[in-house]
């Protein structure tokens, strides 16, 4: 059984979803790459930010 950490699961999810979003939402390869990176950063960044918010709420 594959047991990734929570962060590894977030990174994997963000990677797969960002590739599909980048290819399907933009028309040129350059814009696809930029949008894919943008989505990846937003996915991972928002997960980290929300994690810190929940950490301080739980204290």
């Amino acid at each position, binding site marked *: *059984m*594959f*047991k*990734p950490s929570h962060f590894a*699961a977030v990174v*994997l*999810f963000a*990677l*797969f*979803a960002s*590739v*599909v*979003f980048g*290819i*399907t939402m933009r*028309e040129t*390869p350059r814009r696809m790459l930029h949008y894919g990176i943008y989505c990846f950063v937003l996915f991972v960044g928002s997960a980290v930010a929300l994690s810190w918010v929940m950490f301080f709420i739980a204290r």
Partner: protein
Amino acid sequence: MATAQNNNAATRQGKEQESRQGFVYLPLLVGWLVPGAGHFLLRKWGRGAFLSASIVGMFAVGLAMQGMLFTGVHQILDVLGLAGDLGNGLLYVAAQLLGLGADQVRVTTADYGTRFIVVAGLLNVIAAVDAHNLRTGRKS
């Protein structure tokens, strides 16, 4: 100048006519059944390969995490999970036939795996619709 514009207009018209010929829903259907195949059908090899790798990879990671495949509707919210799983097309059918996936979610990782499988199905639907848009000329 005017001749070049006429040539461009004629080329565009030719492409539009070409895109209307044949069964326009074939890339949508094939793309749904096999992830990335809709793009392969349209000779978009690179895009198809990345889409296929991402969707199949996400589905495989979900199964490796002991994610659950929705088989029936026991609760009303299971309908959403089943709809997402069905988006995987033949991957879902093959996994069911091979008895892959957990029967019940027992650990947190398996819950993540279940979501990975559902989201892979939803991403596959987006990819299939993209192939359809390429076929109809709505996207280049």
